[in-house]
């Protein structure tokens, strides 16, 4: 039933469904049509006759159908649909995903009330399936996908927000640009990385849909003869994604300039450039201050590399100064001309500078040989050079009162993940209580509260000595975001403590989720 009052007052949402005429695609369409949110348009970018039949059969005025472009793959379909979209917000479905009834409503509310966030995501189940006893497929389990709070640095490294879980303002695409119509499997991660330059993502810790896992044995086709191996393809796609830079300004992310003025254009310098490209996932540009023939010898190329031509024989400080004048980034990493620098540490130091360093501080780059290099705020370094042009770069930094300091362990990115790894290792060693205390501390200090509380409850359950605390933590999780695993855990705790009727109720609830009856209602067609 369409609520006309809501249609008039609430923002329009476009659901883009890309499908290949599969039963999954039709289920996805039905899930869009049974949303409790009324002001929807649904654009079905389909390939086969079956889609048209289904869309016509539904006879719903909200559905429009596009034929998928012959070239450009899924990205082309998405772009074509987005060009025709009229909603203020956009969300996505495909052959493997389905929304629960309130998916659109939950995310619209988050975006309308969530401050300046232009994108929001909820949690989804990943549905694991296996062959049924007689024929067809059956649901083996449903595990939470995502569930992690927004972390821009993490997003630059990992694709952790499924496309179907995301809703964003349509006009955000005017700044990010369209989906990249190039071969590769990373189009969603690429788009989410670009979006993260312009907006925070609001995380709604609520399960509003599910995605089927592609776990059929033999489903992954071998690469065609003559095609690059999967690893090479992935490497190429990764590099392409990291090279993509939409136009500035980027209100939510800092650009990083890496200045490298090698004293010799030898194999060491070439290897260092390759390492920087390999390990840097935040947006960056590498400024190579070298004479033209030196640059040719190094053979480095790519859109993220800016050649800063200098005269052969220029001193290192002069080379760096020229690169600094060309740079337009918010922070700059000045690499030593010789000696080693941990390439993975460059962006980590930039992270520390952005999140932990005081004004007037720079962060020293890690180097086993003690070579001097640091990450600076660009304006502070430029001021130091302007005020002390006669001094060497290092002396001018000191004269300007810029303190270079090493990063502390707890300031580095991924420290949450490191603590998580430590807790899991403690669990593997049977030290469940220590693991539980780590999870609880993470929940207090580092967000991801429900995820960490469930992990703590699970560790306490395995400890067998702290059932009341485990039960309390588990019940809190289940009050806010019950999942199959958290319901199962609470049921086991109840059973162990002779609360069998309650255990049975919890298990029935989990069973409803698994059999799809917890949310999914009868389809309209």
């Amino acid at each position: 039933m369409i609520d006309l009052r809501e249609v008039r007052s609430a923002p329009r949402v476009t659901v883009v469904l890309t499908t290949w005429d599969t039963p999954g695609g039709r289920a996805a369409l039905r899930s869009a049509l049974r949303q409790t949110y009324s002001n929807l348009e649904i654009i079905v970018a389909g390939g086969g006759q079956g889609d048209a039949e289904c869309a016509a059969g539904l006879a719903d005025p909200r559905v429009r159908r596009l034929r998928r472009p012959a070239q450009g793959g899924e990205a082309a379909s998405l772009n074509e649909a987005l060009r025709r979209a009229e909603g203020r917000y956009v969300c996505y479905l495909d052959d493997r995903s389905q929304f629960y009834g309130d998916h659109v409503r939950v995310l619209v509310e988050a975006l309308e009330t969530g401050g300046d966030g232009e994108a929001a995501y909820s949690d989804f189940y990943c549905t694991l399936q296996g062959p049924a006893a007689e024929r067809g497929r059956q649901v083996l389990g449903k595990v939470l996908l995502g569930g992690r709070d927004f972390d821009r640095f993490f997003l630059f490294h990992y694709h952790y927000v499924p496309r179907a879980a995301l809703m964003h303002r349509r006009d955000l695409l005017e700044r990010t640009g369209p989906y990249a119509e190039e071969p590769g499997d990373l189009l969603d991660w690429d788009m989410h990385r670009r979006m993260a330059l312009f907006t925070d993502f609001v995380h709604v810790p609520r399960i509003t849909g599910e995605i089927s896992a592609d776990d059929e044995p033999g489903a992954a086709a071998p690469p065609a003869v003559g095609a690059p191996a999967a690893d090479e393809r992935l490497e190429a796609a990764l590099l392409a994604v990291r090279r993509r830079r939409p136009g500035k300004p980027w209100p939510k992310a800092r650009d990083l300039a890496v200045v490298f003025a090698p004293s010799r254009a030898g194999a060491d310098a070439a290897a260092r450039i390759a390492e920087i490209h390999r390990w840097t996932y935040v947006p960056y540009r590498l400024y190579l201050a070298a004479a033209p023939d030196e640059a040719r010898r190094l053979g480095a190329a790519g859109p993220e590399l800016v050649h800063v031509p200098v005269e052969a024989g220029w001193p290192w400080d002069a080379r760096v100064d020229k690169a600094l004048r060309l740079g337009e980034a918010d922070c700059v990493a000045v690499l030593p001309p010789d000696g080693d620098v941990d390439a993975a540490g460059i962006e980590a130091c930039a992270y520390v500078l952005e999140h932990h360093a005081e004004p007037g501080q720079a962060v020293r780059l890690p180097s086993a040989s003690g070579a001097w290099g640091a990450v600076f705020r660009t304006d502070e370094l430029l001021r130091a050079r302007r005020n002390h042009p006669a001094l060497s770069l290092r002396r001018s930094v000191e004269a300007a009162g810029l303190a270079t300091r090493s990063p502390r362990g707890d300031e580095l990115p991924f420290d949450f993940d490191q603590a998580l790894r430590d807790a899991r290792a403690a669990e593997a060693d049977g030290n469940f209580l220590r693991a539980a205390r780590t999870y609880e501390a993470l929940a207090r200090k580092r967000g991801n509260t429900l995820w960490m509380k469930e992990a703590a409850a699970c560790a306490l359950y395995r400890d067998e000595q702290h059932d009341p605390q485990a039960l309390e933590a588990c019940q809190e999780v289940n009050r806010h975001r019950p999942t199959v695993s958290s319901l199962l855990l609470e049921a086991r705790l109840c059973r162990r403590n002779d609360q069998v009727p309650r255990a049975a109720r919890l298990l029935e609830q989990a069973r409803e989720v698994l059999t799809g009856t917890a949310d999914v209602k009868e389809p309209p067609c």
Partner: protein
Amino acid sequence: MLSVHDIRADGAVARGRTHHFDVLDELGNCYAVLGELERAEECYTAAALLEPNRAAPFIGLGVVALQLDRLGEAEVAFETAARREPDSAEAYGGLAMVRQQRGDYASAFDMHLKCLQLDTDNLVALLGLFQASCQMGTFAKVIHYLEVYLQRHPGDAAVLFCLATLYAREGQLEDARQCLLSVLALEPEKPEAVQLLQEVQRQHDRTRPRNTVNAP
């Protein structure tokens, strides 16, 4: 670069593959405890369809059938469970109960024994073995298993009492007396232990040499 499916590298995906089975099997156990046997049976059947190679749901089905006095069905279910997991002590324990209810004590004895070999702590099998022995009148093997069990669980009054009974039947009166004293130390009010101790004491007195009785 990890895909979204690999991010939760805490084994959640691997554990998730058995979610449905775990839920159904545990739900079956809950309903069985609550006496809702039809619902328990329905859950175990669904679990068995999901994971036909696992023994647990067949054991559940066997237990339900046993409670409903459907011995034939119970036997088939326990045999299936034993085929799925030949190391399943519960499957042999179930078969032993079926055979015992049919009065086939020799076979029940063998099944209880097999169950105990796989799970030396299985008290149900131990007591079953005891009952089967009583029916058949052969005690030597049982005494050995009860003694082994009591080395691990010295405070188990029920098993101590069984052992005392067997000792008494075998004429090992001093051993029986010691066992019963241990039982009464644990459960001073246990009337059958008091009664048996009196009986053992009487037999003991009757068999004691007269000069010992009349010693100053």
